[in-house]
């Protein structure tokens, strides 16, 4: 039990610390790397809660795809972050004060909750017992039945994101010659290939189209 507690605090502290570093570090590549660190630690927290499926998804999707994509983009765009950050410090004091106030208030709320033993009893049991059914299967059981509505809704959101990405970035450039496979396949050799007898030595008998 004590090990679990220690693990929890280690993971949680690293997650928060990495989160702070994401916005605080000067080098954008470092920011992305800290983001990945935060994801890993969050995945660890998930594992501790018995949600191993979510933990793996977090690693695969966020670390494996999203964060790596970020990394590429950051490296390719070559944005001068120092310039963007110029205004940042200017607002840091007042922003920090507001942030700390909000944080303190939230801590207050949760701290009172932690002292009060009653609260957890109102929380429904989120997962079925692990010895009966695996985490993945449990999710699958409800995801495609009771939550099919939400699943479809989420599917629509992804579809819109895709449509949006295409609409906002896809351009048909006029100066690029495209390969039109259907045209190539449908082309009739008779219309394009012309077989001509050429008299040796004769001049200028090409018929051009």
């Amino acid at each position, binding site marked *: 039990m004590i090990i679990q507690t220690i693990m929890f605090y280690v993971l949680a502290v690293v997650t928060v610390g990495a989160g702070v570093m994401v916005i605080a570090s000067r080098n954008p590549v470092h920011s992305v790397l800290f983001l990945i660190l935060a994801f890993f630690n969050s995945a660890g927290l998930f594992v501790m809660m018995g949600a191993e499926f979510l933990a793996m998804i977090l690693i695969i999707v966020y670390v494996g795809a999203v964060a790596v994509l970020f990394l590429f983009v950051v490296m390719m765009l070559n944005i001068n972050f120092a310039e963007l950050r110029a205004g940042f410090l200017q607002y840091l004091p007042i922003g920090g004060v507001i942030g700390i106030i909000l944080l303190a*208030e*939230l801590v207050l*709320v*949760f701290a*009172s*909750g932690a*002292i*009060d033993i*009653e*609260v957890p009893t*109102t*929380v*429904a049991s989120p997962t079925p017992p692990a010895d009966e*059914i695996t985490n993945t299967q449990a999710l699958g*059981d409800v995801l495609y*039945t*009771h*939550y*099919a*509505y*939400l699943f*479809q*809704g*989420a599917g*629509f*959101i992804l*579809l*819109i*994101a895709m*449509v*949006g990405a*295409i*609409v*906002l*970035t896809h351009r048909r450039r006029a100066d690029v010659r495209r390969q039109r496979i259907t045209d190539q396949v449908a082309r009739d050799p008779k219309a394009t290939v012309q077989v001509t007898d050429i008299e040796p030595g004769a001049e200028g008998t090409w018929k051009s189209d």
Partner: protein
Amino acid sequence: MQPFVEPDYLPALPELFLAGASVTLLMAGVFIGDRSTRLMTWLACVAMAAAFVMVLVLPDERTTTFFGLFVTDRFAAFMKCLVLVGAAVTLIVGLGYVKREGMNRFEFPVLIVFATLGMLLMISANDLIALYVGLELQSLSLYIVAAFRRDSLRSTEAGLKYFVLGAISSGLLLYGCSMVYGFTGVTGFEGIAEALATTVPGNVAAETGVLIGLVFIAAALAFKVSAVPFHMWTPDVYEGAPTPVTAFFAAAPKVAAMALLLRVFLGPFHELAGQWDQIIIFVSIASMGLGAFAAIGQKNIKRLMAYSSIGHVGYALVGLSAGTPEGIRGVLVYMLIYMVMTLGGFACILAMRQRGQMVEEISDLSGLSKTNPSLALALAIFMFSMAGIPPLAGFFGKLYVFLAAVDEGLYGLAIFGVLASVVGAYYYIRIVKVMYFDQPAEGFDRPVGVELSAVLAGTGIITLFFFAYPAPILAGAEAAAAALMP
């Protein structure tokens, strides 16, 4: 594991139909290409009309389906009708603009249908997760259409700003939802209401936690209806987005978000009415005040409409803060009238073209009464109505919410509202003054187009003659309010 029973799909028929229609339109558009935009627009309107009919013919009584995630009742039907009409009308008024201004892409109507679908889901949400899914479905489509003129710097800026700030608000919403879930243990609206009535009272920690969660949710919803202090995106986005998109923003999503706000506050969190009405009153006063004052200095009419819409949300929230069925009826009537006036107003703005170029400055309207008297008259009607001059529709909208507030003893709020509307009248009437008393500027291009004229005439007549026969609208709103607050 309990056996799975198929949910009843009938109550969600309009949504299912619209979802199918949107995907079909998308596929058709992909194959036909951009020359199908006009066709797609009309087909989208037809789909919305069909959904409208389905909403009307479905049974009125409260039904939940999809295992409690989805609910329909008279309130949902009323709001869905508003949203569908608003969306279809903006598509129609935007036809000319889309064609001329380089937005002639079939995705536009399809995205509007997606957004409308999201709004319908929002209105029918009966669960925090369903709420979030609907909201994101809508918002994502809106971010895209705001940036739809991707070659225009202002349009992309508007889309990006809206996206970033919208993401923050989504974060707030999710945070609030997670707190509510954490302290009540459920996400369904009925479950939350039950928990707030039974297990939470007396438990100080849970009370505080749920309340703070509610504050976060309220902040996110206030962002969506662009209420102060979560309004900052509105002027920039309204100004930068293509005009038909702005018209759409001002009409449909605002109504849908207001519907969601009403349902969340009066459904699951009804028990906390004594707590949340403080937020609503604060937000309402701030919105009315800012809407009145900040609009005065504006030169761009779309920006002015943005502040105007902020102010209108403030007035509508007066009805919610009363918290009575009369107040809710007032909000519903207000939203309906607001939508009609806004659509009319934006139809006028869409007619502001000089030599083929869209213009948006208020000074461009100078002497419009000489160059295009009927357009000037229509805009004057909408402006007077928005200012709340009797006997135009806008006056009755304000009347009903203020009366409800006064009935509940909220005199200060009502008086502030009246004062704010006096200040607000200044900038509305200034537009009338510019049109009627200033030296004529260059006139606008003619003709304004059949679609625009038809919408102008329709909205103008409703605004002008609302007083003659308001009974059916009032009855509809009353039934809707009763469904929400039995």
